[in-house]
């Protein structure tokens, strides 16, 4: 059973590698951040799966920290990329 979980971790890493193609192609910074975000979700999945394969609860702590910090990078990107007072629908 544990072998299946390890195999799943390998598949997840491959899937993240495929998605990094979007980081390379762009075209905009939003797409690149999206690819980074998908890598984050993929690595959280890897941590959960490897934790289940080895019955190692420490991997779950790592996954928990990963999810807690997942939105921080995007928030920093949105704050730095938007000019002050920017609104999608004009002023308001």
């Amino acid at each position, binding site marked *: *059973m544990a072998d*299946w*979980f390890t195999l*799943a971790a390998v*598949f*997840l890493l491959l*899937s*993240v590698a*495929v*998605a990094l*193609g*979007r980081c390379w192609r762009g075209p*905009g*910074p*939003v*797409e690149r*951040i*999206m*690819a980074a*975000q*998908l890598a984050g*979700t*993929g690595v*959280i*999945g890897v941590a*959960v*799966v490897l*934790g*289940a394969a080895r*019955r190692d*609860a420490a991997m*779950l702590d790592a*996954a*928990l920290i990963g*999810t*807690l910090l*997942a*939105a921080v990078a*995007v*928030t920093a*990107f*949105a704050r730095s*990329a*938007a000019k002050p007072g*920017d609104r*999608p629908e004009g002023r308001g």
Partner: protein
Amino acid sequence: MSWIDLAVLALLGTGLAFYGAGSLGLLRFPDTASRLHALTKADNLGLGLVALAAALHWGSLAVAAKIALVWLFAVIAAGITSQLLARQARLDGTRSHPDGDRP
């Protein structure tokens, strides 16, 4: 192989399929909004199914609660992320399709 093992394998396989679909969607979809859709929905459904498989395999209630917490935070993060990225894409004036108008 017990019924629980079969359920774990089925959940794991479905979850991995959704992960693959999310990655493929991010790579192949034509515009920013649909890529965001693949990223924030398919991927988190995949994580949920994989987490369910892990919790079932582990067979402990305390660990299952922690795994559920991991998934809950991932979903909250995906919600925040999609709002911020969609807003940023709109501010950047990204086209909704290569041969469409500006959004």
